[in-house]
């Protein structure tokens, strides 16, 4: 049985190039919304590159025993995108509600909602 992918989950996802024939790497991402009918998931990518925090529409997340991030990370809201289940490799942890709420505020602001 496939593991459930839920909002607030942090997953390691696999990113392939446009042709789908070369593994470029695995990166962590926060699940923002799920669409079970199509098995598609909206995610906000995370990076450990601290320079990213200087960009607008980003949010710093300290690593913790709840989110299980190995390093402090930056959520790149401006890079939000939809991914299919095949890209989800393993669940890392769960994002704390206070951080998830703030990311939600930034998403709304970014989209002008």
């Amino acid at each position: 049985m496939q593991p459930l992918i839920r909002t607030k989950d942090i997953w390691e996802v696999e990113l392939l190039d446009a042709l789908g024939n070369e593994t470029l790497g695995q990166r962590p991402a926060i699940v923002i919304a799920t669409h079970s009918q199509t098995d598609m998931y909206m995610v906000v990518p995370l990076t450990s590159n601290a320079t990213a925090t200087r960009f607008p529409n980003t949010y710093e997340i300290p690593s913790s025993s709840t989110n299980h991030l190995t390093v402090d990370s930056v959520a790149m809201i401006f890079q939000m995108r939809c991914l299919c289940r095949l890209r989800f490799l393993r669940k890392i942890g769960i994002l704390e509600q206070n951080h998830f709420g703030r990311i939600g505020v930034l998403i709304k602001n970014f989209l002008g909602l």
Partner: protein
Amino acid sequence: MSSNLDKVIASLRFLELRPDIRTYRWRFLVQKTTHLAQTLGLQTNYPFTIYVAGPYSPLLARDYYAQPDKVNALQTEYELTRRDAVILEKIRACCDLYQDMSLMECASTVVYLMNENPDIRDGDIIARIKHLKPYLGDSTCVIGISKAKELLFKSEYLTEELKKEIDMWEKAKD
């Protein structure tokens, strides 16, 4: 020779603002606009400190109280440089700050804090803002930080390493 106030008036005119310096709202907006423009490089040379409603310059207040009609009429011969215009366009792009005084108060305070300490962490900024301004909501704090980052952003922040990482996400098609 043009005074610092002339540069402020020229900036307000560029931003198509119509100040009424008799009102608190406009004194607030003139203070914050001047602080933002000065932090981004416009040479008005007013010393700012953090007061009750964010960055504030008593010298700027002295100048506009001395010549309120000149400010209200946007009366100046000073011509902004091309560099000044680039700075002010950046502020114009954040025009929603002019529709929400709380957001302007928060964003200008964050700009002040980030200018003092460029390596300050988001979490530390939120803690400082909540301490200085407990009446500002969490959403205002978070959006204010993002607005400040937008104002202070420099193209060199997009490093090759970061560009590669962003490209990688761009190529993830589904």
